[in-house]
C-alpha cells in the first residue's frame, strides 16, 4: 500500500485535544537499539573508511567498533538510565537476544519493554522472507521475555510496501518507522489497523553523530531545544518526544555525559512522564479508541 492509502493527511492543530494523566504535558520515551552486525557482510555504518576508499571485505575495524557498544558501551547507558529510574524500550535484533544475552537479561530485569527490530541488522527490503523475519524476531523476544512484543522498529526504519500489513498479521500493535507526527497515528493495513508511535531521526545518535558528524555536545543541545519546543506546543495538546541511542555511539566514553545531562534537564520538569512505547500505546487507545 502507498502511504496515502494507509492514512489521510491531517493537520495536528485541527485534531481533538489529547490529555495525559496528572496534568503532564509531555511523554518522553527512550529507545535503546541493540544490534548484531554480521562480519561477513558490509557494515551497516562505518567510522573509518579504508585507505584510498572502496569497501574491502571483511570490514573488521568497523565490526569491532560496533561490538564495543555491546561489550562496554551498554553498561554506561544502563548506568544513566538506572540513575534517572527510566525504563527504556529495547529495540533489539532477534538474533542479538541470544548472542548478547547479558544485555537482554539486564533489560528484562529492569522491566524494559522489548520491541522487534528485525532478526538481523539489514534493510527489510533485502530480507529474503519478510514475514519469516518478523515471525522469528517475535518468537525470539517471546522466548526470552514470555511476552509477545507489541512494538516494531524496522532496521534503519526500513519497510517494504507490505511491512505494516505483515506486522499487524504477526500480532504487532504498533510500529515506529513513520516519523511524520508528534502524536500517535493509525495506519490502515489489509487486516486491522496498526498504531504508529512518534519515533525520531532528529534526536537520534545515528543521524546526528554518524551522518551529520556533529560534536557529542550537539546531542544535549538538540535534545534541550526539541524538548523546549514540544513542551511549549503541549499548550494545545499532549505531545510525545522520543530520544534514541545506540550503545556503540552514545556509550563511547566521550559522549555519555551529554546523554546524561540531557536527561537531567528533562527530569527536572515535574510535568513530564517517562513512558515506554506500550504505555504510550495504551494511553492513546484509551484517548482515541480503536482506529
Amino acid at each position, binding site marked *: 500500500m502507498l502511504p496515502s492509502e494507509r492514512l489521510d493527511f491531517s493537520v495536528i492543530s485541527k485534531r481533538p485535544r489529547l490529555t495525559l494523566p496528572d496534568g503532564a504535558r509531555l511523554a518522553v520515551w527512550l529507545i535503546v537499539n541493540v544490534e548484531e552486525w554480521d562480519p561477513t557482510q558490509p557494515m551497516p555504518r562505518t567510522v573509518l573508511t*579504508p585507505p*584510498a576508499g572502496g569497501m*574491502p571485505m571483511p570490514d573488521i575495524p568497523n565490526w569491532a567498533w560496533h561490538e564495543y557498544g555491546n*561489550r562496554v558501551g551498554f553498561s554506561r547507558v544502563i548506568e544513566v538510565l538506572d540513575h534517572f529510574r527510566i525504563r527504556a524500550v529495547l529495540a533489539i535484533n532477534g538474533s542479538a537476544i541470544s548472542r548478547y544475552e547479558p544485555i537482554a537479561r539486564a533489560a528484562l530485569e529492569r522491566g524494559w519493554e522489548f520491541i522487534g527490530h528485525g532478526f538481523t541488522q539489514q534493510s527489510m527490503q533485502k530480507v529474503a522472507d519478510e514475514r519469516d523475519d518478523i515471525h522469528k524476531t517475535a518468537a525470539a523476544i517471546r522466548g526470552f521475555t514470555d511476552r509477545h512484543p507489541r512494538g516494531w522498529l524496522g532496521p534503519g526504519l526500513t519497510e517494504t510496501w507490505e511491512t505494516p500489513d505483515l506486522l499487524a498479521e504477526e500480532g504487532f500493535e504498533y510500529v515506529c518507522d513513520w516519523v511524520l507526527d508528534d502524536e500517535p497515528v493509525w495506519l490502515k493495513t489489509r487486516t486491522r489497523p496498526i498504531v504508529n508511535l512518534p519515533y525520531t531521526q532528529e534526536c537520534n545518535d545515528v543521524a546526528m553523530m554518524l551522518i551529520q558528524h556533529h560534536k557529542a555536545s550537539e546531542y544535549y543541545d538538540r535534545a534541550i531545544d526539541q524538548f523546549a519546543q514540544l513542551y511549549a506546543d503541549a499548550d494545545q495538546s499532549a505531545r510525545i518526544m522520543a530520544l534514541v541511542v545506540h550503545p556503540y555511539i552514545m556509550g563511547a566514553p566521550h559522549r555519555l*555525559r551529554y546523554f546524561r545531562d540531557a536527561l537531567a534537564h528533562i527530569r527536572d520538569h515535574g510535568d513530564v512522564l517517562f513512558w515506554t512505547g506500550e504505555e504510550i500505546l495504551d494511553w492513546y487507545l484509551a484517548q482515541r479508541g480503536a482506529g
Partner: protein
Amino acid sequence: MIPRERCTYSAIVDRPPLKLPNQARIVVWTIVNLEFWSISRPMARQVLPAPTGQVLLPDVPNWSWHEYGMRVGVWRFFDLFAHLGIRPTLSINARVCREYRRVARAAREAGWEFMGHAWEQMPIHKVDDQAQMIAKSLDTLARFAGTRPVGWLGPGLTETYETPDLLAAAGIRYIGDWVYDDEPTEIKTTLGPLVTLPYSVELNDIPMMLVQHHESAYFTQRCIDSFERLYREGAERAKIMAIAIHPYISGQPHRIKYLQAVYDHISRHEGVLHWNGVEILDWYLSAKTEL
C-alpha cells in the same frame, strides 16, 4: 576465521577488574602513525578532491599534503613528546625506514616503540602475498630498530579473515585492529592466543578530522571528555585510553596546540601511566595471571 570464531561475546562488567601498579587508574597509550603513500596509486586520504570529483593519477596535491607531515609536521611531534617526556608507540609502514630514514632515525633515537604497520599504506586485502609482506615488514623494522616488533596495526586497521593467524605465525604478540573493548583481550589464532590492545577510532585524527570534519579544537574536547569518564571508571577497573595521531593531520600548525592541550589536561591528574604497546602487553600478561 570470522571474528566470532576468534572470540565469544563478553560484557566488561562480567569480568574481574584488572589492576594497575601503584593504584594507577589509567594508561594513556599514544600512537604516532608514519606512512608511505605511493604516488603511483590513489592517495590513502584526500584533503582536496579534484574539481568535479575526478580521480587524479598522479594526485600531486594530496600526496604533497601528506608529505608535509613527514617534512614538517612530525618534527612538531618530536618536540612535543620530548618536552612531555613521553615515548609513544610508532606505527610505521616499514618502507618509511628506507624512504624517510631521517624521520625513522629520530624515532629510534627518542626510544619510541616500533610497531608493524605493513609495508606501505594500502588496504591489506589488496596485498598479493600477505605472509611475505608481513615478514618483509618485520624484518626491515627489526634490522632498523635493532629489536623485532611485537605489535601490529593494519593499514586503516584492515584485516582479512587470515590476518591474525599470519601475524601470530610471524611472531606478533599484540594487534591494535580490534577496537572492541577498553581492556586488552585475547583472540584465537591457528597458533594460539593473540592479544588485542584497545587502539582507538574515536580519539583518532583520521575519523575526527578527515571523515567527520570536526574543528581542530574538538580534538581536545573529545579527548578530555573520554579521559574524564575513563579516569572515573579507573577507580574500579584499569582503563586504557589510546590517542592515535598522524603528522600530516595533528602536526599541522593550527592543530598541534590542541594536541598539546590534551596532555596538559591529563598531566594535572595523579595515577596516570604513559605506556607504549609492549609495556601494556607485559602488564596485561602478568595482571591476568593474578586474577
